[in-house]
């Protein structure tokens, strides 16, 4: 790398507050041409907020913004686009009803001289752009029908190949499998070689260290440091992110882990011979009270479907599900909830009410217990307050609109509601997606707490760390089939990846 490539973008003394919440305070940030700049920090540290300022989402901030040495102030994302800045947001922002090709070219449709959309050309180009990321999807397919990992890749493709010279990726890998991440990284290296600048936000410190040239650490709305990636270590980064010693966290799960001895509780959840199209092939499993079963597999191997089937959201073509001995009939999600099954889906949009306050989000599944004829608002709020304190959700206000919370804090809210009135079976799909190291640790504690209360917990995830850190027993799913079970033995990340 050249010694000091010129800065193409710099923020000087930028501050941004949302009402009483100081999201960014006096932040300086410099992005150079041809660099991949990693951004790390705890949930709510202000990473997304800063990037949204750069991408023109937030026009209202204090401080200076220099692009190519000239001061600019974007009024809208359109201004940022025109200046060559594009962003993949933390929350998927795709159009589920449009085709894949239309999503790839959202806003930049290919037209002929008469202004007519050239569908065939668009489809062809979409296909070849996606192939560069290793995605083989029919460009005519409806976006909403793709698995979430593919959707994320389509969105990434749209931004990567939009021609922007500054590309911002806010937690782009949260739904991707290791091979997909590898392909993304090689695409990023190509773009870097072509002189593009990339900002890469992630909670996966290993990913950051492997792709970034420079790393900036945020904490509580302030920039803590910017260092060359080569001069830092995972431990050092975590240390400055969290601001306190956190020795056990440094220990990643690449080491061997001894799975617990089998639980002795009664079998609570029993699935027998579940089949669903090509997603699930004769899947049988049973989970005991006080046991955490992890189901690991690459994105799209059927684990999302399995979670949905267990929660009555999808009806299997064959097979049966029993909860505490009683067969679950087609009662939909409401029937499953009555039987004692609770579900935390993988997409925050699919489980949270962004325009409602936090307390309504935490109470929805247990309103039956919180009301007779009428709701009991005082109790509802008190409960939410306790949950906020238990999970250290920021900001700690029951009335805060959910949409105003950072991604990781939203995830905590999604988990909070099961703490007080635990169900019999809890199905968690990707429970730590988008969480910082400290918050992941808290989720692990929550799950262990629930387990101690005698819940049967099923964790479905494509992140090996997630499964390894929580599960007592691990089942590996490959293309809809359970291929391997790890129980009462020693496992490691490598052995899991191998099995999948």
């Amino acid at each position, binding site marked *: 790398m050249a010694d000091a490539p010129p800065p193409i973008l710099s923020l000087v003394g930028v501050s941004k507050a949302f009402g*009483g919440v100081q999201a960014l305070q006096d932040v300086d940030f410099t992005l150079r041409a041809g660099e991949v700049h990693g951004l790390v920090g705890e949930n709510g540290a202000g990473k997304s907020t800063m990037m949204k300022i750069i991408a023109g989402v937030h026009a209202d901030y204090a401080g200076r913004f220099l692009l190519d040495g000239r001061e600019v102030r974007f009024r809208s994302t359109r201004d940022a686009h025109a200046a060559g800045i594009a962003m993949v947001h933390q929350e998927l922002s795709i159009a589920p009803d449009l085709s894949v090709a239309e999503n790839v070219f959202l806003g930049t449709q290919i037209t002929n001289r008469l202004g007519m959309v050239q569908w065939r050309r668009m489809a062809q180009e979409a296909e070849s752009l996606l192939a560069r990321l290793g995605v083989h999807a029919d460009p005519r397919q409806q976006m909403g029908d793709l698995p979430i990992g593919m959707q994320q890749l389509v969105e990434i493709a749209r931004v990567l190949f939009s021609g922007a010279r500054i590309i911002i990726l806010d937690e782009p890998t949260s739904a991707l499998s290791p091979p997909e991440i590898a392909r993304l990284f090689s695409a990023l290296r190509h773009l870097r070689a072509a002189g593009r600048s990339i900002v890469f936000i992630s909670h996966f410190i290993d990913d950051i260290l492997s792709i970034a040239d420079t790393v900036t650490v945020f904490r509580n709305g302030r920039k803590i440091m910017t260092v060359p990636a080569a001069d830092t270590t995972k431990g050092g980064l975590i240390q400055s992110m969290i601001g306190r010693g956190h020795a056990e966290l440094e220990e990643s799960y690449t080491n061997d882990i001894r799975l617990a001895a089998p639980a002795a509780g009664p079998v609570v959840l029993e699935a027998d011979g579940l089949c669903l199209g090509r997603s699930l092939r004769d899947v049988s499993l049973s989970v005991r009270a006080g046991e955490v079963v992890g189901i690991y597999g690459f994105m799209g191997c059927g684990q999302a479907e399995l979670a949905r089937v267990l929660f009555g959201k999808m009806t299997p073509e064959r097979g049966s599900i029993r909860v505490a001995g009683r067969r679950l009939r087609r009662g939909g999600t409401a029937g499953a909830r009555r039987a004692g099954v609770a579900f935390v889906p993988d997409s925050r949009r*699919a489980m949270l009410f962004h325009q409602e306050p936090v307390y*309504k989000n935490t109470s*929805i599944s247990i309103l039956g217990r919180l009301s007779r004829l009428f709701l009991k608002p005082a109790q509802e709020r008190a409960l939410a307050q306790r949950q906020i304190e238990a999970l250290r959700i920021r900001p700690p206000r029951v*009335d805060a609109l959910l949409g105003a919370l950072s991604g990781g804090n939203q995830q905590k809210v999604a988990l909070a509601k099961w703490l007080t009135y635990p169900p019999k079976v809890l199905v968690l799909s990707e429970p730590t997606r988008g969480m910082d190291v400290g918050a992941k640790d808290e989720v692990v504690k929550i799950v262990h707490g629930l387990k101690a209360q005698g819940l049967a917990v099923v964790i479905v995830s494509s992140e090996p760390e997630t499964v390894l850190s929580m599960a007592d027993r691990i089942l590996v799913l490959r293309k809809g089939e359970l291929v391997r079970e790890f129980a009462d033995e020693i496992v490691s990340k490598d052995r899991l990846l191998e099995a999948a």
Partner: protein
Amino acid sequence: MNDDITSASTAHPAPARRGLGAIARSQMRNIAPFLTLIVLIVFFSVVSPSFATLGNVGNILTQVSVTGIIAAGLTFVILCAEIDLSVASIANATGIAVAYFTLQDSYVNIANVPVPGWVAILLALVACSALGVVNAAGLVVIGIPSFIMTLAMMQIAAGISALLVRGQIAYKIPALISTLGSGSVGGIPCIVLVAAFVLLLSHLVLTYTRFGRYVYLVGSNREAAENAGVNVKLILGAVMVISAVCSGIAGMLGVAHFGSAQQNEFDTYLLDSIAAVVVGGTSLFGGRGGIGNTIVGLFVLGVLNNGLDHVNIDSFLKILIRGLILLLALIINVYAQRLRETSAD
């Protein structure tokens, strides 16, 4: 709790340190219709001496009552991000049904089936509930979009009305209904009291019960509600039935109020009731708004209709003015939604 009826259903107590501007932006949906109402009242009071009189207030209240009962039910539907286009037709059919089951004078040439008054009322209520159940089944069991389903129901109910009266006009209805529709207690028309009662009850249900909470949450994010274990189909079905029953009650009282039951006598109520809900600021995208908004919307329309009669303008121009006001309200409705989305991200 917040007891201000116009905001209780939607307002979350504003965070203490948020600026006034931010509060105004997020409450745009509640503030704009209310300001519109004040402006209209002030305007008509100034230009017409006969507008701001006690007697005229009574007129306005009576004029909005039938719409108010329909709009109460429709509020549930719109909060769920659905629509019910069959409200006026169901009102008409129910009004005709109650007359059909009452003994008519011999000169009314209808082959009707006279039964005791309370049975007639019961049968009429069963009839409108049944139509609501059909709407609900079409929507949640078959999966027909509510816009289309209720469009069909609009025709079906109109057909039932036509078959029952066959072009005739019926006058006799059960005594209870005529008292509620055209009587008064202590100088206050009963129909106003009934409308107030229905609106109040709807408000209580929407704001303070579990069902009401589910209605809002299903409207604001259906998938999340389903994932939380809410029986979304049951909620959607229930709101369609509630809407039909409210329409049925409005239809019976309306017949008493007009003094006759005939075809097409409720036609204008479809637009009026949708307009009342939307002008009041309830979001067409679901999840925002409430009965408080609907009441404000009712009065905006009521004051406008009544006030225009007190000033001397071309009666054809009035129709245009109403249309423009409705358009303005729709623009505010959509704009408020967008503001809210950006402020909450």
